Every structure is written in C-alpha cells, then in structure tokens.
C-alpha cells in the first residue's frame, strides 16, 4: 500500500487530466430554448436536473422502472433516465415545471392531486403528473381500468395509489369543467351534469 498511501486524501496533481469531450444539446424545455454542453454519456435526467437546473424531475431508480423521471418528449411520456441527453437534441420537452399555465394556474392534473391527496412525500409525483397529463390527452374520460392502466408503470411508496387513481378521475373532471366554463356555451352547460368535454 506504500505508493498509493501518500496519495490518499486530497489528490495532488501537477496538471489536471484532459476533461471529457462535450457535445452541444439544443432543446426546447417548457417553451424556452435551452442549450447544454454535456458529455456523450450524460443521462437526459441528469442534464435536465443538473445542467438545465430543473430539479422538479426526480430520479428514483436510474433503470427505467419507477417512472419518477418521466417527462414529455415531443408530447410523449418517456423515462428521462433511459435516454442520453445527446439523443434529445432538437426535442421539445415538458417537465413538471411546465405543466401549470403561464399565469401559474395549476393544470387539471396538478389541481386534482392537491384536492385528492394524491401525493404524500411528493418524490414520485412529477412522474405521475407528466404521465397522467399525456394519458388524459389520449383517453379523456378514463374508466377505472383505463385509469389503472394509465399509472400502471409508475411506482409510489406512500399513497398505495388509491388517491392517485382518484386524482386521475378528478383531473378528467376538472378538464371537462374548465372546457365547459371557457366555451361560449358555458353558461348553459354549467347547469348540466358533467359529461364529455
């Protein structure tokens, strides 16, 4: 151990070894053009969190199983820990920070999670919010089975999923309510029971 022993602790070096080669990644994130210079191996999740400093996207497993890092890539929910940042060059990305309206109004899914106690520690929540946002675009009025299917690939350790399922249904309802109240015929529909938007 003698040679290495002296080198323990703070590593003294005459010159720093050459750094990793960097690549430019241009993306649109939550409507804004962003550029990052990253090594080829940088995960998209790490790029979003540490290079673009959008830490709302969380990393729960780094092997694509938990879904906490789910973002919308060109509108589709993807696990950002399974993508390399360089492969997202040119993409349009929505993270949890981009779900609320520009005026700060919570999106229907965000509002539903708050109303229904759909989150506890909140760590997995951004992945659920993005996943359900995309899910409700595909299935606007999910039945129970479809709601379960929608969140079937995301792990939550706190809620036992009961109130997340309730949030899916409530989010669909809020979406309909908002569509009704913003449409010209809103006054007429407000009196009617909630139906398809």
């Amino acid at each position: 151990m003698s040679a290495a022993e002296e080198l323990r602790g703070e590593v003294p070096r005459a010159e720093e070894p050459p750094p990793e080669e960097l690549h430019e990644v241009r993306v649109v994130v939550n409507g804004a053009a962003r550029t990052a210079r990253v090594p080829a191996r940088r995960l998209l999740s790490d790029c979003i969190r540490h290079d673009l400093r959008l830490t709302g996207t969380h990393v729960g497993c780094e092997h694509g199983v938990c879904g906490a890092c789910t973002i919308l890539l060109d509108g589709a929910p993807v696990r950002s820990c399974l993508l390399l940042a360089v492969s997202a060059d040119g993409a349009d990305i929505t993270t949890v920070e981009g779900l609320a309206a520009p005026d700060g109004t919570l999106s229907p899914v965000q509002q539903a999670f708050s109303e229904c106690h759909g989150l506890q520690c909140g760590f997995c929540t951004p992945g659920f919010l993005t996943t359900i946002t995309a899910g409700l675009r595909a299935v606007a009025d999910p039945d129970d089975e479809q709601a379960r299917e929608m969140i079937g690939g995301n792990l939550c350790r706190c809620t036992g999923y009961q109130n997340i399922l309730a949030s899916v249904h409530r989010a669909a309802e809020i979406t309909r309510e908002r569509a009704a109240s913003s449409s010209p015929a809103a006054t007429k529909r407000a009196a009617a029971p909630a139906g398809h938007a």
Partner: protein
Amino acid sequence: MSSLFGARVQRVEDDRLVRGHGAYLDDLGPDSLAAAFVRSPHAHARITDIDVSGALDVPGLVAIYTYEDLPARLAEPLPLLIPHPALTHGRTPYPLANGEVNHVGEAIAMVVAADRYLAEDAADLIDVSYEPLPAVVGLDAARAAVHLVHEDVPGNRAANEVQEHGDTAAAIAAARHVLELDLEIERSASTPLEGRGVLARWDEQSQHLVMWTSTQTSTGVRAAVAAKLGLDLTQVDVITPDVGGGFGVKIVHPWPEEVLVPWAARLLGRPVKFTEDRREHFIASAHERGQQHHVSVGYDDEGRILGLDVRFWHDNGAYVPYGLIVPIVTSTQLLGPYKPAAYRVEFDSLYTNTVLVTPYRGAGRPQGCFVMERTMDAIAAALGLDRTAVRERNFIQPAEMPYDHGLIFQDGRPLIYDSGDYPALLTKIKDLVGWDKFAPLKEAASAEGRRIGIGLACYVEGTGVGPYEGGHVVVETSGKVKVATGLTSQGQGHQTMLAQLVADELGVPIADVEVVTGDTRRFGYAVGTFASRTAVMSGSAVTLAARKAKEKALRVAADAMEVAAADLEITGGMVQVKGDPDSGISLGTVAVLSNPLRYAFDDAAKAATQFAGGGDMSKPPVAPDDEPGIEGRAYFSPVRSTFASGIHAAIVETDPDTAEITILRYCVVHDCGLLINPQIVEGQIHGGVAQGVGGALYERMAYDEEGQLVNASFMDFLMPYVSEVPREVEIDHLETPSPLNPLGIKGAGEAGVIPGAAALAAAIEDAEGIPVRSMPISPSELFELRRAHGQETR
C-alpha cells in the same frame, strides 16, 4: 371542539410539490463536489490491499479517502444509538471499513470529484484486494453458528432477552389443549422512492457547518456529527429538506456518509454532496422483518389463552446501530388486543453477513401480529370455533383500561395500554367485510370451481413514543404565525396537521400559519420522526406553545384595549371583545404592541415606540417576569406511549391452476383516537396497506448463499405497482380518545402495514385449507405448499 380539528383540510405542502418546486436533497447544492463510494462486493472478507493509483488519472478527481485517512473520532465505530442491558455484544460499523467487511455494500473508500459521473469513474478504478471469509447468510446459518460474522461474538448472538409475566411453563402444562407452531417472516425494506443523501457546507470564516440530509432526525444527526467532528453544537446546523419518503430507514444516524461528507467538506473547503443510488439503497442502507418464531400455547375449551410462550430469532444483519428496538417491539406488541394469563417471550438477536436491520414502518409489529394472529387462527381451527369468537374471548375489555401487561416496552417504560375498545372494532370489521355472510359466498364460489377465503388480523400499536418533542409559535407583526418543531417530515402532511392545530388554538386563518420541521436553526431540541409519534408529540407541543402565545396576546391586547383578558377572543386573526367584531384589533397589531420599541421600522411599529404614549410610567416597559413579543415555546413529554389499534380483514381468491393470489376486498377499521385530518389519516392507511400487501405477497430480499443480494433493483424487488394493490381499501374509523395527551390523539403512521401479512395469510389459508405459516407467499410457493399437502395440481 373547533373549526379545523377533524376537518379534511387540503394539504398546504402540495402546491409547491405539484409544481416541481420541492427541494429534495439532490436538488440542492448544484455546484457541490460529488462523493461516491467503493463498496464491498463480498459479504465477508478481509481487506488485504487498497490500490488507488489507477484512479488518479480521472479528470475532476479531488480526493480519495480510506479508513487510514480518518482522524481519531471518525476512526472509531459509529455509535450504538440505543444501548440495552441485553445487548451484550453490540457491534457497529466503521464509517469506512477497517480491514474487514461484513456485508455486500459496506463502504470502503470515499471518492470526491467534480461530479458524480467522475467520482464513480474513480471509484471503479480503485483496486481493493480481499481475502474472502465464509459468509453467514440467513437465520439458519446464524443459529447454527458454524461460521461467525464477528470473531469475538460467540454464536453470532448480539443479544438474548427474556420477558415474562406469570408462570408460563406451568400455565401451558396445566392447559387442556396445547399447540406448537413455527412461523416465519422474510426480509423486506422501507424502500422510499428517494434514497439517502447528504450535502455539507463548511464556512471557514464563521467556523460553522451547515448540512442538509434526507433524515428522520435532524437533531440526532447534528449531535452525532458535532461529536464525530469535534465541533460544538452551536457550530453545526442540520436542515432537513423535502424528504422523498422514509418509512423508518432514515431514522438511523449517523450513516457513514453523514459523518464523512461534512468531514470532507470541511477538509476541502468546498461543499460536498452524496446522493445514494438505487442499488446502494438496497445494499448499503437497512432492511427489516426477517424473523423465525416458535410458539407454544396452552388454552382452554373456549379458546382462552392460558399460557403463551414465544421463542424467536431475529436477523439483525451485520451490525446493530439501532439496538434491539425491532425484536423488543415484536416481543411486546405481539400481544395485540389480547390478555394471555401468562406470557413468556425470549429472543436471540443474531448477526448475519447482510445489510443491517433497523425499523421499517411497523418495526417488528408485522411479525408479532403475524405470530399472534396465526396462533389465534390455529386455536380456532383446532377447536372448530369461529375465528372471531376466539379473538373476542381473549380481548382486553374497555373496562379493563388502562391495562398493564407487566412487561417493559420499547421506550423503557411499562407496557400499559391507555385506552381502546377492541370488541367495538371487531363488530365494525365484521359488519364492514360481511364476516357472517361469507360462508354462503364461499360455498357458491366453490360450486363454480373458485377458491375464495376470508381472514382477519387485529393489532395494537404503541404510538407517540417519548421522550419528548417541543414546539415554538411566534406571531409576526404582520399577523402571520410561524411555527417550528424539531422533528422531521417525510410526506405525512405534518405542516398541514400542525397548522390546523395552531390555527384553531390561535384563532387565525390556516393560510397565515407556516410550519417548519426538522431545521435545527429553528428548533434545536427534538428526538425525531418514528413510532407514529409526530401528531401526538409535536401536535401536543405546538398546541401548548400556541396556547401560551394566545395567553400572551390576550394579555397584551387586554392592556391596550383596557378590558379584561377573559372577555377577549381571537377569531379570524382579530382580537376582540367576545361577540363584538367591531371591537377588534389585529393579532399583528398586538404583536407590535408586545414589543416596546425605540425605533419605528414601519408605520404599524410607530404604535409601540417610546413617545407614542400610553403605559404606566412607574413600571419598566418589559416587566421583570415578561418578554417582548407574542411567542410560545412548549414541550410535551408523556408518561408513556399511547396505544392505537385496529383490525384488517381481507377476502382473497386463489387460482386453482396457477396459484395466483388476488385480493378481492381489503377492509380496515382503525382507532387512532381523535382524528385531526381524516384525509391524511386515510392516506397513511392506504400507503401502509400497500406496503403490507407488498410484504405479504411480493417483497423479499433474495440473498444467495454467498450473501449477494440478487434482487437489488426495482426490476427484481417486487414493490407493488397499482396492479398489485387492492382495488379499494375500505375504511371505518373508531375514535377512542387517549387520556395521555391534550388532544386525545394516537399515532396513525404505521398502522396500515401491521396486520397485512397476518390477514392475507389467514385469507389464503381459508381459501386453500392449508396452514400458511410463512410469509411472503408467492404463487410458486403456494403451488409448492399445495403439493406438500398432497393436493392434486391440475
């Protein structure tokens, strides 16, 4: 009693969290150096050499530390947090391995580099040479003790403890009926979605350390770090950021990383951060649950237990930093709502070359509940009695409260139940699940070739464990109320729950109340979040603190308004003569008046300045026994724990061909005293039930004989997705107040998980007609169980 207590108040935490504005550990300190660890690939080995030379060419490398670099206090083993007289052979790990590793994942070297990628590069290039030693894996190997985990611990036995109430051997010998059962539970783990993490920043100028850690006890970490780094407590602050779940694992402290990271940050003069990855969490944090039990029970013709003898073996993993809490909890909480005439329990806590074992939600209770409830079912089966009848005959009755078991609980205090109504719980669960109407359903299903079964399990949970918590309430001159308590939050909605209590006490809108937890800058005295204690402990403390603040506010307002304090009330943030809204002054103004000023910092403050007039010129502006400001600080320290209770019932279907197990219904009746926020309590139950189902049907730590954890990923460790949890968790509450705290409440955090394995085992047994004595149970295990019992398989 008041407007917000008992209301389904929407959580104040959520707005930030749903916007992605939470601040979890790894979201902090973006420009910090990153730490990564070289961890043992062997379950048991001597380290013969550590060669770091290969790592030195990694760009961005800053430092590499091994055991030999550690200064004196850090070179000692980490603390044994909870000593116990029976823990005769307590061993704890070194922050970095000192020549020997005792489980896969034990830390050997710490690398600090510009970012985590580079730190891991360097860690991979450090060459450690090992001389492998035989690994002790599993309780059978630990008990056989052919090989030892620690050379100086004979029989691998960390502890042996016996507790007894009555003469159990004589009672069993005299009983008409005796049963013997072997019952086993395997390992699982807390598995929060966020792993552990630490960020430390040393300020050389002020000689002050600030650290953020994903912990369940910031004050515990602070004290431990100060001791290990040779600092005064006032030189260290520990802040708990948003924490992505805890479930017990984060009460352990200090983790090796929690002392090494601040130490390195101080040495290097730069912030250092460690963020645990998922594999590390599996192999380098903590597990729980693994126990083997042997039961001897003597009972009468009615099923009343005359003598109960439980001998069990607890797998404590490689080290015991958290002492004997888990097996002590099993041995005491096993009794549940029952009163065996005589009870003896003896356990060995045994070392194995596996990840250490510390409390995971439920903390030994799921095992105890499994043992007791399986025993109840076995007695019922042997006597041909209804399972609920046997339970009812053994219940402690409400009139017998407080009930003294004659044992010592995990807090070192007598095991005395404060209140509870177990017969009422049983009535409720039978109604909820339709217990008495199940037989025809089962018969009808059977006629269709389907197997369905029903089971239930009762538990009692000691919650609100001491020694104390404190609270601080201060009214700002803006009228806003700032509340602090020292224990920490991991998603339980503490800010909401505590704000409800303070808003009620002070008569202010909940929107004006802001609660901070787990920040030693705000509150320095605390114990931590565990044992379902926050509502009881900190809820009571902040209530008492708010009462003090209110008393002061009324006194100051009474002086200013020239009325008697007794004639005043606070409502909507206004102090007014009772029933006279026009008479009021705002609480913020009262806060201004409470602080005699020389200098006006704004218009409102002018009222309190020295030439503003008023006041008795013969007296000092602040009376000798008074203080400026509207503040209250209070501590709550109960004489002993308060005992919550409940019963779960499950109906399952087992597939005759595939042995797949499906939960058809899952019902919960729950008594945690008065409910502060039913929505939050139900959320806790939902989450607990999911973990109970995971522990019963899916989760296990799959160690091979060499001590490799072969399922150390979310791909292989089967944590429930939505597809694995019951479609609905049907809940009914009973509210039996606790006499031990000012709010009449009991803890609710852990209960949901406790009876899961027991209730599901009972339901599967009922469906199959085969005894289920070991959990978790997978379809393939059920299939094998059928074969072992000679059932034809199709």
